[in-house]
């Protein structure tokens, strides 16, 4: 059997992940009898359900406790100081650590029965546990500079629908704008759209990746809450250009408040026959990897595919598929409506366009800031009110947990794809994490590496075993001399970006603070 042979379970007609989600909503949890019934109803082997239920954190096989407190353990919350809440665990209260919940602007953060909360202190949390649950409300929407519409929306897609040459014009504008993917990899958007447009096979799909889950990253949440119409219009334009009739918003399940805003906008959108499905992720950072996301949509474990082939030619159900980040789609209507030049002017010299950056960690006003691309880190820190508590800057990660750390003396680096690459880091997921003096960088290294270990899907050996061994080394502070070699094998042989970068941030810390190697 050669590569590319698709094993078709064509007797499977039900979508399993939605089926499991619905069953869990009905029964509270997925007990063995429930799973057996589902397997029978869907006519799938039991192990297919087990593979999913055991992989996705959203699924539970035991009844939920009355109160479930999920405490974020990742870098922004770690820097903010995570309160010791384990004492509350017991009886009908469950306290458990979870990966980043995307609320780094209110760190230390958590979820109380699914509702985002700021974990100010043990006493406050104790009160919630005994009854008074806090409410969560998104702030009122604000208008962002990338929004071309002072009032009437969806102008770009409306004109496009009447324009036979519209698709080519869009691709030309996108190319001229220099828009690059905002999810982390920075692939030129116009080129990607053109590739999918050129594919002859149909149906094609448009997928908006709204699964941002990297510690420190929460900019897409802001866009979904404040400008969902731009995301929707971006997807509609994409459908028009590449020739797709179906779009999917793949949304992380912690973003249910944002989902309400998106759903409302969707109800008002001039879809014109294009279908947009909102698929709520069953959880896991790895699903942000585009092929893991596709696997999830195809009811399998979110394990990244070997590439090539790439989704542009062989994506969802092996069909041509355009996948872009929320911010990428949100930038498209402005470019189409006002032209590439208008958009480029929102950037700085040599760095076209605007950029949303989530700032977290040791700053006075963590949050999402739209800045011209090419703004320096120092400027952005000032925008965010400066390093918190008047402390001095020690280190920063300019592109989320997977980007290499840079020391304070590099704070004049410009936030730009190329400039950061030159500096030995990356723009990544648009998340600037700030560390003030006094922090234990080796602990930061261990924290970040633990995140990747925790979120490794386990598919390939270097990432599955390597990330675990790296954490053991960093926690025990032993065999750190082997870490570069381990980093190399992970970088060179892991299937996807997660494994490839998992140890890099820790290595960057050991590089910039060599004295830490001594333990």
């Amino acid at each position, binding site marked *: *059997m*050669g*590569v*590319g*042979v698709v*094993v*078709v*379970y*064509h*007797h499977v007609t039900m979508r399993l992940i939605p089926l499991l989600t619905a069953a869990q909503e009905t029964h509270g949890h997925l007990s*063995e009898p429930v*799973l*057996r019934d589902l397997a029978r109803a869907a*006519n799938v*082997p*039991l*192990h*297919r*359900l*087990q*593979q999913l239920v*055991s*992989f996705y954190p959203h699924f539970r096989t035991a009844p939920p406790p009355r109160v479930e407190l999920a405490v974020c353990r990742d870098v922004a919350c770690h820097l903010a100081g995570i309160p010791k809440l384990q004492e509350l665990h017991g009886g009908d209260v469950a306290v458990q650590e979870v990966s980043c919940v995307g609320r780094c602007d209110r760190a230390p953060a958590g979820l109380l029965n699914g509702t985002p909360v700021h974990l100010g202190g043990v006493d406050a949390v104790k009160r919630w546990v005994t009854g008074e649950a806090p409410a969560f409300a998104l702030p009122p929407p604000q208008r962002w500079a990338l929004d071309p519409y002072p009032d009437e929306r969806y102008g770009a897609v409306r004109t496009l629908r009447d324009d036979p040459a519209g698709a080519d014009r869009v691709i030309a504008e996108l190319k001229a704008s220099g828009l690059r993917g905002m999810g982390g990899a920075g692939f030129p958007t116009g080129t990607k759209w053109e590739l999918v447009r050129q594919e002859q096979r149909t149906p094609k799909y448009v997928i908006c990746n709204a699964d941002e889950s990297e510690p420190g990253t929460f900019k897409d949440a802001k866009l979904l809450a404040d400008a969902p119409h731009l995301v929707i219009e971006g997807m509609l334009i994409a459908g028009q250009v590449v020739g797709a009739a179906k779009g999917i918003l793949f949304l992380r399940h912690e973003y249910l408040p944002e989902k309400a805003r998106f759903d409302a906008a969707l109800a008002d959108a001039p879809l014109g026959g294009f279908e947009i499905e909102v698929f709520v992720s069953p959880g*896991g950072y790895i699903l942000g990897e585009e092929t893991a996301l596709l696997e999830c949509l195809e009811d399998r*474990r979110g394990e990244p595919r*070997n590439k*090539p082939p790439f989704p542009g030619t062989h994506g969802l159900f092996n069909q041509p598929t355009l996948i872009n980040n929320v911010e990428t789609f949100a930038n498209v209507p402005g470019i189409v409506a006002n032209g590439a030049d208008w958009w480029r002017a929102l950037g700085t010299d040599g760095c076209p366009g605007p950029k949303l950056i989530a700032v977290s960690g040791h700053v006075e006003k963590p949050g999402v800031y739209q800045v011209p691309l090419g703004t320096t880190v120092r400027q952005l820190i000032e925008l965010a009110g400066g390093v918190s508590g008047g402390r001095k800057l020690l280190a920063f990660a300019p592109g989320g947990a997977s980007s290499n750390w840079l020391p304070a003396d590099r704070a004049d680096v410009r936030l730009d794809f190329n400039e950061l690459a030159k500096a030995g880091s990356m723009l990544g997921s648009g998340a600037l994490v700030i560390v003030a003096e006094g922090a234990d960088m080796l602990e930061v290294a261990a924290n970040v590496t633990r995140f990747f*270990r*925790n*979120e*490794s*899907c*386990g*598919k*390939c*050996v*270097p990432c*599955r*075993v*390597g*990330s*675990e*061994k790296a954490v*053991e*080394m960093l926690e*025990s502070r*032993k*065999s750190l001399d*082997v870490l570069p*070699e*381990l980093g*190399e*094998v992970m*970088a*060179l*042989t*892991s*299937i996807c970006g997660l494994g*490839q970068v998992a140890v890099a941030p820790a290595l960057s810390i050991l590089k910039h603070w060599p004295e830490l190697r001594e333990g």
Partner: protein
Amino acid sequence: MKSVTLTLDGRSLSVPAGTTIWEAAKAVGPDIPALCHSPKLRPVGVCRMCVVDVGGRVLVASCVRLCEEGMKVETSSPKVERQRRMLTALLLADHPSPCDKERTTRDCELEALGRKYDLIHNNPLQAHGRQSVGLSDLSSPVIAVDHSACILCDRCVRACDEVQCNEVIGRTGKGYPTRIGFDLDSPMGQSTCVSCGECVAACPTGALTNKPITLPLVPRSETTNVESVCPYCGVGCAITYHVNAAANTIVWAEGRDGGGNDGRLCVKGRYGWDYATHEQRLTKPLIRRPEFYPKGPLSREVRGEGGKNKRVDYAEVMPAFREATWDEALDLIASKFLAIKKQHGPRALAGFGSAKCSNEEAYLFQKMMRAALGTNNVDHCTRLCHASSVAALLEGIGSGSVTDVYPDAQHADLILLTGSNPTVNHPVAATFFKQAIKKGTKLIVVDPRRPTMADFADWYCQIRPGTDVAFYNAVLHVLVAEDMVNHCYVRDRTENFDALRELVAKYPPERVAPVCGIPADTIREVARAVGTSRNMMIFWGMGISQHTHGTDNARCLIALCLATGNVGRPGTGLHPLRGQNNVQGASDAGLIPMVYPDYQPVEDETVRKKFEVAWGVPLDPKKGLTVVEIMGAALTGEVKGMLMLGENPFLSDPNINKVRKALSALEFLAVQDIFLTETAEFADVVLPASSFFEKLGTYTNTDRRVQIGRPTIAPPGEARLDWQVICELSTRLGYPMRYESPAQVFDELTSLSPSYTGLNYANLSGGGKIWPYFPGTAAVPAALAGRAGDLPRQSSAPTVGARAAGTAAVPGYIGELVLFADRFPTPSGRATFVPCEFAEAADLPDAEYPLVLNTGRVLEHWHTGTMTRRASALDALRPGPFVEVHPADLAKHGFADGQEVTVRSRRGAIRLPAKASDGVQPGSVFIPFHFREAAANVLTNDALDPFGKIPEFKFCAVRLEE
């Protein structure tokens, strides 16, 4: 085909587009290590050991990366080797070295890499190793699981999911704690695992290993490895047996490439061979002591007085016999047979050969019965199996064999599977069906009892028992009514279609729906699927044949294929899945009362003359009696003396209470077998035979594939090779038989059997050959056409076979897979439609006996259990009998699941535990017939199909009692 040119380690080469780097490298030399990849499995690229440098930012896994034009590949640069070493170090750090595989067969692939990279005592990650404990799962009787040795290569997952398609194993958990899990992460022994062992065969480490069955497992270099085949079903899997010659014991078995099975096995083939060295093997000839006359059954179970022994209790039965010398025993048999022949004529003698024996043994047995004793009363269990199918096939298309082979299911776009439970009875053939279905072939399953294959079906029709003819007539009705008949095929290749059309006109779906319990619309859908498919294959089993209207059932299936033009092309055709490993061969060799070898009719004078010349004696011009008829004749005294070679009619024949009387009534019975069977309790003389594993011979599987079975161990004690016993006995009967070897017997068989032309021991090694075999452009033997079996036939048509000419040019040619591309071996060269009306079964339920009994088999056991209940693993997996009852019927009777109940028919009663199952429909029960302590055939009806003379094992009325 497009090709691409690339540079591999500095060497330029061109490969077909679509070739992976790993495959390209393998073809030209550099050995790229891989743990997760194996050529038979879909590559997944998870272990990353096979990474190579193609000049990119990262290395690529060569097993999944396709060669590209102009690509420059480094397969073993220092950079690449450094990563491989580190990957090995990562896995070895957590590996329990030596693992179970390394400690036994010494072939753990990870530890081999560890040695290659000098990591066993020198692992930079040793300090961070995690030697997990408590991760072993020993719940399966045959497979040991050690999760700590698992490297998550997913080979077992793919072997289970995509090769065997049993769909039990998956990954469970996420990230570092991920493990393989069975079902919902159950212990393996409590999961739906069917113990095929494909996962063990695929596993590169000690995570999944075979538990020892006889002796501890040892390195392959320390065993003698014998290339043979499986002794069980008609799939005829090629096997390598690993033998400890000094201990005269098989240690383990492994699937072998080259046969139809592509290296796959099922639980019986892989784990069911230690019966050969069971303590109850007969080692000396036995003669019944005078005080045990008049003859009768010896054990409680056979007397029908209860008793729960799963095997004949030798303490209970052996006192009836004394040991004897071979000379004494053989002389006694010869003298008794000759006396009966002299006094009552040759037709007072009869012999049952066995489909478990080789072609050579079958040939010699029927030759002895016919030439030495002068009777055609020779038959075997084909009578109980596909006799009706063969009758219908001979009548309809002029040949009783399959028209296409089971692996060709991959070329069908529709499979109709009916009256067959292949995951249980032909498990390895079923894997090919399931694979085809996963790649898009549609499946229709028609069966009153839900088989596992229904899970894979697009349409599953649970018809009321015994209503097959009505159902298929309705399907044919729709084909005609909606004009989905292949008119060209019908016009050019068939005759009598008008009669069929006229008959099926009376079977509109609306009329048939209440009869068979299938909605009319479903019947139409099924008919449309059949009518619109390009290539359809029909596979069927005993559910079709074992009825008093079994021949009619098969006629309907033939009509379905003919009406839609589905015989004669790859991926089409009629395939009655043969039961026994050599039921095709034993029939080919003439172990049938109406025909000599190769279905040449005994009542055809020309044919008889030919055999009289060949065998040098006058032969009986009248056809003989069939199995059930012989039993009847024994009861009436027409048959007085019998020889049984490897058959156990006491458990295998219908209406055991009648069989008991018949066997008791025989004046003289000689049994040649490896154990003292239930039937042998009635014997005057018992001869210790050799088991499959002790002898050389050829076996013909369901695909007409002739393969060699080779001796793996020596017979115990004074047990003798069966072909030699037959020669000895024949000689004493006054008809000397002297052969040097089974090969010489085979040559004689082939010289008299046109179908076997061209086959000989020299060319049957490896994967064997499929008959007819036309290497080169040799003319098709004229005598191949127009043969007849049970039915009168003329002989004249000149050709058979699809690609007779020019096949020599085909590399790897092993014989004709597809038959009848141009014409059928009938006098007219055409196939015949034989329309038939629906008729009810013989023993219908009524108020007194309200339920319908269906009988059959289970995966772990074989027929009367003589072998499998003495195979320790199979016995452990399935220790006893049960009756499947629908939960609604259990509730109606107030019985609990697992409660022991009495099942009674008009002929007898048995007691056994009830098992709730919604696989049987309400009003039906199912009992497997392997279990002597609750023999299903006590209940079954010995009414016969008028054409095939097959009894109605699949239908009789019963009731449940407390």
